[in-house]
């Protein structure tokens, strides 16, 4: 695959297209962009019919070993690869190790193994087993096995971080070796994984060493939301990006919030996982982006000025706690369980165009959520996925038109839906 960049800001964002992806080398994916998040090949809640009411869809589907490792035997007997097994047509398959939303208890990594958690519990993987899985899955792209267990719980010691970098490199080398010898994986590409936790030195070392290997791109691990604060993350990512070749894509794992996405794009990230729409769906919320930057210039200037007004901050939506207290929602969402939507017959977002907004109203979604009906998840997943991919489209357009600052103030500012 080839990364064609139309714009590169040194030490900053990139804009372009990843081409000739996949074994058929026919797919492309615009960057910055997102993958299509699935569990065992299915976008949560959606059958293929409902999924394909969305257009365009990200051309790369993400599968995680968390949701398929337990089916290794079945896939080995099937012999035709995961895409066929799951009924996935016309898509590029990318396989990562961990599902970003599955909890990963710490303390289960060894020198030779990592673990994933499936529906039946923990599954321990050696590189051998990891590669046997890849052979059975036949993805178009996959990340190599990695020790990323450095970001949860207490801050990892320097020694631990060094170990994770060393192990990850060793795993990568072993993966690449087996990859060469595996007929079923010819034509597939491997992404090297950059580790190092919060240590600049380890991060740089990991990046430099990984870049020496014949990988198709890079996975940035250990930066998951909650692992470190935003500024440190972007600082480290920038530093890492400086060590990576310009012409290979960088995929960031575990970051999905729109504001964090933009910050990481500015630090040099190309691709993101799209689990965020699912998180929003599960809390009964709908994404509401106002992506239209084409308002009058006067207002635009005013807005740029307003951004810095700190007295407005408390009202400017930070995350809000949802009624049941179990969760917070981001400023980019509306909480459809709120009784104010009971008699609101407008679509979720005017002009959204997704199946949900074309066919249904806020009042109906509210009713489905109150009565705990399954259709709520289906409709919200469609809407949230549509909004999220539209967000990336608008971000790319803003980068192309030199409107990133306007994008940040307009889109990332708090938009409380009334």
């Amino acid at each position, binding site marked *: 695959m080839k990364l064609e960049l139309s714009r590169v800001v040194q030490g900053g964002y990139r804009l372009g297209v990843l081409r000739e992806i996949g074994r058929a080398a026919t797919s492309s994916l615009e960057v910055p962009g997102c993958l299509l998040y699935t*569990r*065992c*090949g*299915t*976008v*949560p*809640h*959606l*059958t*293929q*019919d*409902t999924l394909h*009411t969305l257009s365009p869809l990200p051309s790369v589907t993400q599968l995680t070993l968390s*949701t*398929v490792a*337990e*089916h290794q*035997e*079945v896939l080995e*007997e*099937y012999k035709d690869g995961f895409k066929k*097994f*799951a*009924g996935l047509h016309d898509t590029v398959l990318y396989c990562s190790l961990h599902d970003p939303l599955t909890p990963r208890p710490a303390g289960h990594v060894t020198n030779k193994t990592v673990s994933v958690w*499936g*529906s*039946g519990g923990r599954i321990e993987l050696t590189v051998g087993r990891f590669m046997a899985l890849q052979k059975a899955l036949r993805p178009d792209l996959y990340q190599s096995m990695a020790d990323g267990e450095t970001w949860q719980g207490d801050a990892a010691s320097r020694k631990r971080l060094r170990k994770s970098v060393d192990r990850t490199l060793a795993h990568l080398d072993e993966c690449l070796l087996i990859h060469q010898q595996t007929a079923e994986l010819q034509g597939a590409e491997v992404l090297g994984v950059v580790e190092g936790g919060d240590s600049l030195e380890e991060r740089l070392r990991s990046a430099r060493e990984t870049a020496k290997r014949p990988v198709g791109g890079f996975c940035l691990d250990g930066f998951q939301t909650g692992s470190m604060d935003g500024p440190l993350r972007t600082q480290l990512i920038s530093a890492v990006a400086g060590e990576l070749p310009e012409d290979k894509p960088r995929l960031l794992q575990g970051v999905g919030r729109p504001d964090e996405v933009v910050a990481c794009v500015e630090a040099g990230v190309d691709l993101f996982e799209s689990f965020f729409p699912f998180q929003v769906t599960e809390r009964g919320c709908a994404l509401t982006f106002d992506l239209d930057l084409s308002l009058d210039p006067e207002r635009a200037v005013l807005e740029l000025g307003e951004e810095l007004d700190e007295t407005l901050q408390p009202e400017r939506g930070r995350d809000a706690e949802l009624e049941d207290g179990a969760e917070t929602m981001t400023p980019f969402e509306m909480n459809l369980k709120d009784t104010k939507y*009971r*008699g609101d*017959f407008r679509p979720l977002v005017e002009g959204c165009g997704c*199946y949900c907004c074309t*066919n*249904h*109203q806020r*009042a*109906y979604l*509210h*009713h*489905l959520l*109150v*009565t705990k*009906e*399954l*259709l709520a*998840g*289906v*409709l919200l997943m469609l809407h949230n996925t549509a909004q999220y991919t539209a967000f990336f489209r608008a971000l790319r357009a803003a980068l192309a038109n030199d409107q990133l600052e306007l994008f940040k103030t307009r889109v990332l500012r708090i938009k409380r839906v009334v």
Partner: protein
Amino acid sequence: MPSLKSLSAVSPLTLRIIAECPVTKARACDLKLPHSLVNTPVFMPVGTQGTLKGITSDQLEDLGCKICLGNTYHLGMRPGPALIEKANGLHGFMNWKRNLLTDSGGFQMVSLVELSEVTEEGVKFKSPYDGSEILLTPEKSIEIQNSLGSDIMMQLDDVVSSTVTGPRVEEAMHRSIRWLDRCIGANQNPEKQNLFAIIQGGLSADLRKTCLDEMTKRDVPGFAIGGLSGGEEKDDFWRMVTLSTDHLPRHKPRYLMGVGYAVDLVVCVALGCDMFDCVFPTRTARFGSALVPWGSLQVKQKQYAKDFQPIDPDCKCPTCKRHSRAYLHALFKNDTAAMHHITVHNISYQLTLMLSARQSIIDGRFPDFVKNFMRKMFPSSDQYPSWAVDALASVNIALDQH
């Protein structure tokens, strides 16, 4: 003087009999309702709370469904008739462009019997959500159904469980007649909404006959056979069904409520029923049970983990066209979409079964259809349920038995 209404108004329901089986009592009809034509015999999926459990309106339409159910009791509580009326009725609220049938809330008297009390006035329910009391009268039920705007409304009937015996059954039957009249009087939309009567009388031929005689005197567009499909013996069940169809007018649709198992559907088509509803196919789907011509297939069972065929190789539903038992088995461990796949398949199975029955009636080969169906469903003829054998024999189908 003839009522001007009946002379000049286009009836919101017309039934055209396309074919009648010369051997049995089965018929194939075209039922014209305000939102679309419905071919009978027909199975109507149940979307209790204004949604068909994870299936979108488009998916339901694509499966060929022309009529489905909503429930007055549930929708009357949440979100309530006033809101639904504002949303342009239940059609507008759930965005379903074809026909809707609403149950009156009567069945909940049985299913939620702990929470209800029946008097001549109506049924008093205690809300499970906030403990408050609601009185559902015939007038109230029709008022709610008028707001919902369904194409077919059911009268509020006094429903007793089919396992109840004694004077309560007779009381309920007579009250249902009185309530039918109250419902007819309360209907504000007779030009757009069809009110069906519900024949009660438990398992007593005499009571049923009385109810039939009385209710058929009322000029309602259709009749339902109620109070069955509970825990009663199948031997009693089919006799009440056939008694009812013997005495219901030929030119009006016969709706057998709560019947949905495949064998029951086929037998009751033979006995002269046109319309059916049941939560079973959609409910069982969510537990991973897929309906097939030879019974059912529990996709979650280990034996299907490596079974790479579709649920039914002959089925043309979206699930069977794209997915295997093995994939669905795996998916059940991961995502709700697995349930939706099976729900789609089960609805398809039920609708296709009725479509095949209809076509066989039109082609004059319904008895063969029944025999083939039974052969596929049961591994050997000594496993044919005796009630089904008797019921079919009563309409001149002799199932080959060893």
